[in-house]
């Protein structure tokens, strides 16, 4: 468990940056505590939150001094719509940082993102770039518009895109792109895959990695009530030594990142 400070604090919205494709980067003022790639925060609006439970979001970006941070939000329901219709100066309540990040000891991971699953990879790409070893990022979407945030990542990582309609990069699914890169030698045996995206995509990536013999870590998006380990509502079925025979794991505490072989079904 990371010994990082968790806190609940009201932040001010600095701006809601339109990333295209219906997604926004919600930028809030600091202090944003040090947060590792893959960790998340529970968010809600300070006033007029239209639903009961806060919503979990990976931290998208953070100023090195913590003076601001941002979250990748796509308005799909009442809660996300409320967040995206805030005006600068409005309050956003953040609880976090929460959860366990992607493994910190993987030197050159192959990052695979789908849609707003891009979120945890910006911080990771920024860290790697600072060390002079930019990561490979495979970013897939239905079409060009679905690749929201691409411009943010391009300066930071070796980005390869895929679109179902071929409007940007590789034509096809991101799994096809991964196989293609393997054939070209841009992904090699022994590489470790970090993946975040819609469930069907993560299933497909995990399955492919299993076939190719690559280790694969998935950042799950699970329905959560609390985010800090008290509701037991976000449990997923797991297997493996670290769970000591317990069949369920709380995504908010032991996740949201799991190695694919730990997840049952």
């Amino acid at each position: 468990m990371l010994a990082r400070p968790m806190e609940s604090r009201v932040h001010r919205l600095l701006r809601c940056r339109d990333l295209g494709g219906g997604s926004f980067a919600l930028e809030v003022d600091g202090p944003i505590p040090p947060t590792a790639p893959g960790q998340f925060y529970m968010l809600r609006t300070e006033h007029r939150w239209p639903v009961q439970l806060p919503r979990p979001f990976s931290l998208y970006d953070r100023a090195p001094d913590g003076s601001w941070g941002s979250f990748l939000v796509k308005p799909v329901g009442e809660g996300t719509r409320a967040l995206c219709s805030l005006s600068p100066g409005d309050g956003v309540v953040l609880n976090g940082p929460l959860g366990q990040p992607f493994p910190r000891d993987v030197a050159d991971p192959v990052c695979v993102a789908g849609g707003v699953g891009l979120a945890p990879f910006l911080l990771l790409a920024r860290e790697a770039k600072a060390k002079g070893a930019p990561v490979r990022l495979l970013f897939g979407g239905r079409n060009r518009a679905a690749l929201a945030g691409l411009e943010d990542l391009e300066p930071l990582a070796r980005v390869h895109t895929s679109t179902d309609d071929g409007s940007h990069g590789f034509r096809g699914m991101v799994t096809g792109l991964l196989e293609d890169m393997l054939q070209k030698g841009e992904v090699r045996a022994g590489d470790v895959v970090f993946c975040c995206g819609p469930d069907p995509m993560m299933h497909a990536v995990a399955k492919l990695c299993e076939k190719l013999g690559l280790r694969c870590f998935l950042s799950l998006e699970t329905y959560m009530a609390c985010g800090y380990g008290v509701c037991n509502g976000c449990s997923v079925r797991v297997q493996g030594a670290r769970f000591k025979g317990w069949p369920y794991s709380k995504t908010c505490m032991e996740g949201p990142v799991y190695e694919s072989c730990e997840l049952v079904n």
Partner: protein
Amino acid sequence: MLQTTLGSLRLQNPILSASGTFGSGWEGRQFSDLGRTGGLVSKTVTVLPRHGNPPPRIQETPAGMLNSIGLENKGADWFLADTLPKMKQLAAGGAGPRIVINIGGESIDEFVQLAERFSAAGVDALEVNLSCPNVQEGRLLFSTEPRLTEQAVRAVKRVATVPVFAKLSPNVTDVTVIAKAAEQGGADGITAINTLIGMAIDWRKRRPILGRGIGGLSGPAIKPVALRMVHDIARTVRIPVIGVGGVRSADDVLEFVCAGARAVQVGTAMFTDPTLMVRIVDDLRERLAAAGTTIDELCGSVHRPVPPAPGACQPDQGRGACV
């Protein structure tokens, strides 16, 4: 002003966590100073570990949520060794919140075992979960049956050396009959209410959303139901009532107190705001000071004749007779 008592148990204020909504308190300790709460009620502990129900386990609903956790917990041995010491740390040697352990049994024998072990472990009180809707397993819930309620409470009381509160289900025809049975069994207090059984359906999949099909409804949606039940129970029994159901603010707390609650638990709202209990404590102090009253004075006030409005002048008494 904020002090309250539950039988022999003194609380620095009437705000407790509701079982199953704040873990042991330890998980959320970094968010606020829990030393300022009235009490921490543990998630239900069972004799043996329970894995809980298959996911999905929660679903948000208008003004509330459904849960079907199924009492997932690592059992009494683990709790006594690992969790209770942490709760005692939060209790700050009795200077802070009271430690209440919620116990769940599938039989009277299990309740007795748990009551013996936790009494001996030096907790402040026991809350007997007679009412979890998520673990029925074909058997009748204790708290839907007055006779079983009375038997279970009596058996627990026989071995318990600390106050015993009975947590009741709202899923009954007349909750006052069950409350009366718990009182007859010797309960030191009644906690009301547990969740209302509900369901959510995904019509596109033609299936219930929750893994187990049904779940317990909590949150603001159930507050009016809880208030009515606390009101009716308080009128029926002589033992103290702990109100719970949809509390989000100091005003909600004071409504429960007026209905007859001596203490109030904050549940689902702790998921949304882990600092809420201490914020409510602060707000309560302000509200009571502004109204010039106390928890003690307000408790059960809806059951008494309406007092004259503050500042209203009594006729024929002239100036200076305002009350």
